[in-house]
Every structure is written in structure tokens, then in C-alpha cells.
């Protein structure tokens, strides 16, 4: 036992003192050239691209401006993808939810809420890391070489904004003002992109674009420019869907497992995380989008994303977030 402890201490010292070791793990996690474990970041981006294409498979709509009207639109997709986009073949869950709440007569959104709960309990924010088209777009934006400042003073406080957006713009305002899907109308950047495509493809609709469109363009512009500097600012600070799925991260069927006996607290995982989480302390933080960068960065293979813990059968001490008091 003593031997085990001293071995672990030695490893920890080696890893935390050897700047090269930590930073190379950090670098490899960012450029995707690190030790290949599971799905590498290139593999993740491939899955994101395929998910985006599938959810927007009405390709001719991008040229004609006509939206898809088939039966597949009965199904809500898991991520943020506007149903008014000419390419979309599914319905947006946030738009559909507001539509139920803001109807002239209130109807409880059993179906939409059921789908969201199902996706959340099964995958948690894996939806954000792998399936959401707007998340993918932000990943691409952050790859563009530009001034980067992913950590700043108010980051911690701004993260609460998305819960306010969920409560006020997605639930309370649509409930109190009939026919006002407030999030779609005033914020949603996915809808604005659909608007831009419609503007280019449908001439007769152009004169109707006015001050609201200008406002939404400003919001989209801020999100795009800040997305060059900060990793996924919309996901971190504004997205009501990310806020909702975050509640499931602690117990979702597919979640992160930390093998505490293997972890040497070198901090490589925390340094690799662009969502600014320390998964060795909070493996199932509500902010974690399950990108897997930390899993690849860990030199001890102490982290794992899956249904079962990778070392549960080896008799080691594994946790899936038991020490995460706030879950965030």
C-alpha cells in the first residue's frame, strides 16, 4: 500500500514539475495529435459534421429557399437547429417548446419535454459535444487563428445567464405573452442564420426584414466575433438547451468516470479543457460538453466517458461525480 502511495506521489511530482510533460499533453489535446483514446478530436469533428449534414439534409432548400415539409419534421432533433432553415429536416426542440407554451390556449408540452428528458437522461451534454450543429459551428470558429482569451474574470458569473434565458425567454415570457417565442424572436442565432439564408434565396420576403432582423444580426455578430476569442461563448453563457441538458450530466447513462486511484492530480485534464472545468474534481460538471479532450490529455488514463466505468471491474475506486457538490 505504502509502495503504491509513494509511486503515485513520485508520478504526481514528475508530472507537475515537468512543465514539458503537462504542456505537451495540453497541446496534444488542443491539436488532436495526442495519444489516441476512443474518439479523437478529429473523429469528434467528423461526427459533428455528419450530424450537421443529416439534420440539414434538405440540400436543395439552400438553393430554392423552400423549407422541408415532410413527416420527419414531427421529430425534434436533440440540438439547436432552426426548423425555419431551408435545409432542416427535423424540428427544433427549443422552438417547439416555446410554441406549445405561447399558443393561444396553453398545452402542456408532453412530447417535446419527453424527448428532451430522454435525450438528457441518455446522453447529457454529449448532445452538445457531438450532435448540435450550432456547437459544431462554434468549434469551427474557435479553430480560426485569432486573438484568444478563453479565461477571464466574469466568466464564472456569465455562466448563470443561460439559466435566466431558459427560465425567462423560453418559459415565462412565452407563457405570459401569447404568440411570443421570445428566445427565437430576440436571441436565437440559429434562427438568424436561417433568416440570412432566406434573405439570399427568397426575393419576395426581403422587404419584410426590418429592425428585428437588424437586432438579431447584431446578436449573431457578437456571438460570432466572441466565438473567435472565447471557446463556445453561446454554449457557455446563453444556450437554454445546454442549460437544460447540464442538469442531466451527473447521472446520464453515458457520463464521465474518474478513477481516483489512478489520478495523480497533475492538472493536465484541467489545462486541456476549453470549457474551463477541472474534471479531476468535477467529472460531471453541468458545463461539461463531453468533448473528450481531457480524456485524451490524461497521462494516467484516469478519465473515461461511457456507461460503465472502465476500471470498475478492476476493483479500483471510481467516481462519476460523487464529489461534485454543486455539479457545476
Amino acid at each position: 500500500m505504502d509502495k503504491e502511495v509513494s509511486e503515485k506521489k513520485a508520478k504526481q511530482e514528475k508530472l507537475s514539475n515537468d512543465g514539458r510533460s503537462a504542456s505537451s499533453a495540453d497541446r496534444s489535446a488542443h491539436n488532436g495529435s495526442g495519444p489516441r483514446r476512443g474518439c479523437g478530436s478529429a473523429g469528434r469533428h467528423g461526427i459533428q459534421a455528419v450530424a450537421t449534414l443529416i439534420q440539414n439534409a434538405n440540400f436543395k432548400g439552400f438553393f430554392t429557399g423552400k423549407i422541408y415539409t415532410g413527416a420527419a419534421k414531427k421529430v425534434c432533433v436533440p440540438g439547436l437547429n432552426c426548423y425555419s432553415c431551408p435545409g432542416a429536416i427535423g424540428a427544433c426542440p427549443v422552438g417547439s417548446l416555446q410554441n406549445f407554451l405561447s399558443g393561444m390556449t396553453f398545452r402542456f408540452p408532453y412530447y417535446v419535454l419527453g424527448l428532451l428528458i430522454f435525450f438528457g437522461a441518455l446522453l447529457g451534454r454529449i448532445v452538445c459535444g457531438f450532435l448540435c450543429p450550432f456547437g459544431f459551428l462554434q468549434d469551427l470558429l474557435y479553430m480560426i487563428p485569432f486573438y484568444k482569451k478563453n479565461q477571464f474574470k466574469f466568466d464564472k458569473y456569465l455562466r448563470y445567464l443561460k439559466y435566466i434565458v431558459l427560465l425567462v425567454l423560453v418559459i415565462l415570457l412565452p407563457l405570459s405573452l401569447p404568440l411570443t417565442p421570445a428566445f427565437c424572436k430576440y436571441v436565437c442565432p440559429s434562427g438568424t442564420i436561417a433568416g440570412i439564408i432566406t434573405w439570399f434565396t427568397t426575393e419576395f420576403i426581403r422587404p419584410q426584414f426590418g429592425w428585428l432582423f437588424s437586432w438579431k444580426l447584431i446578436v449573431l455578430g457578437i456571438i460570432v466575433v466572441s466565438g473567435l476569442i472565447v471557446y463556445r461563448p453561446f454554449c457557455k453563457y446563453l444556450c437554454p438547451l445546454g442549460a437544460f441538458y447540464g442538469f442531466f450530466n451527473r447521472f446520464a447513462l453515458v457520463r464521465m468516470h474518474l478513477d481516483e486511484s489512478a489520478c495523480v492530480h497533475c492538472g493536465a485534464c484541467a489545462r486541456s479543457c476549453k470549457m474551463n472545468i477541472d474534471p479531476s474534481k468535477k467529472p460531471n460538471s453541468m458545463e461539461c460538453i463531453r468533448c473528450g479532450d481531457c480524456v485524451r490529455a490524461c497521462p494516467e488514463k484516469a478519465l473515461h466517458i461511457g456507461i460503465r466505468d472502465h476500471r470498475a471491474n478492476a476493483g479500483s475506486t471510481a467516481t462519476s461525480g460523487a464529489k461534485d457538490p454543486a455539479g457545476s
Partner: protein
Amino acid sequence: MKKLLINKNLLAVIVMLIGIGLIVIGLLSGDAVSVLNKARRICMECIGIG
């Protein structure tokens, strides 16, 4: 710790079943058709016309 893991998986499965239950209730009360009716028309609020 293993017990905690199983309990969390059980919780996830129970919540997934609740989700499926809500989906079924929604389907029986015509929610999917309402979703389709909204999604097959361009939403003016979404694209910024209002």
C-alpha cells in the same frame, strides 16, 4: 462506489422511461402533429421578421 454507480444508472433509466412515457402521452394527444404544423412553415420570429 459500485453501488452508487448502479444507482445512477438506474436513475438514468428511470428518467429515460419517464421521458418515453411523456413522449407516448404527447403522441396520443396529437403533439407531434402540432410540432409538424409549426415546423413546416417558416417561423417569422425565428428568421427575424417578427
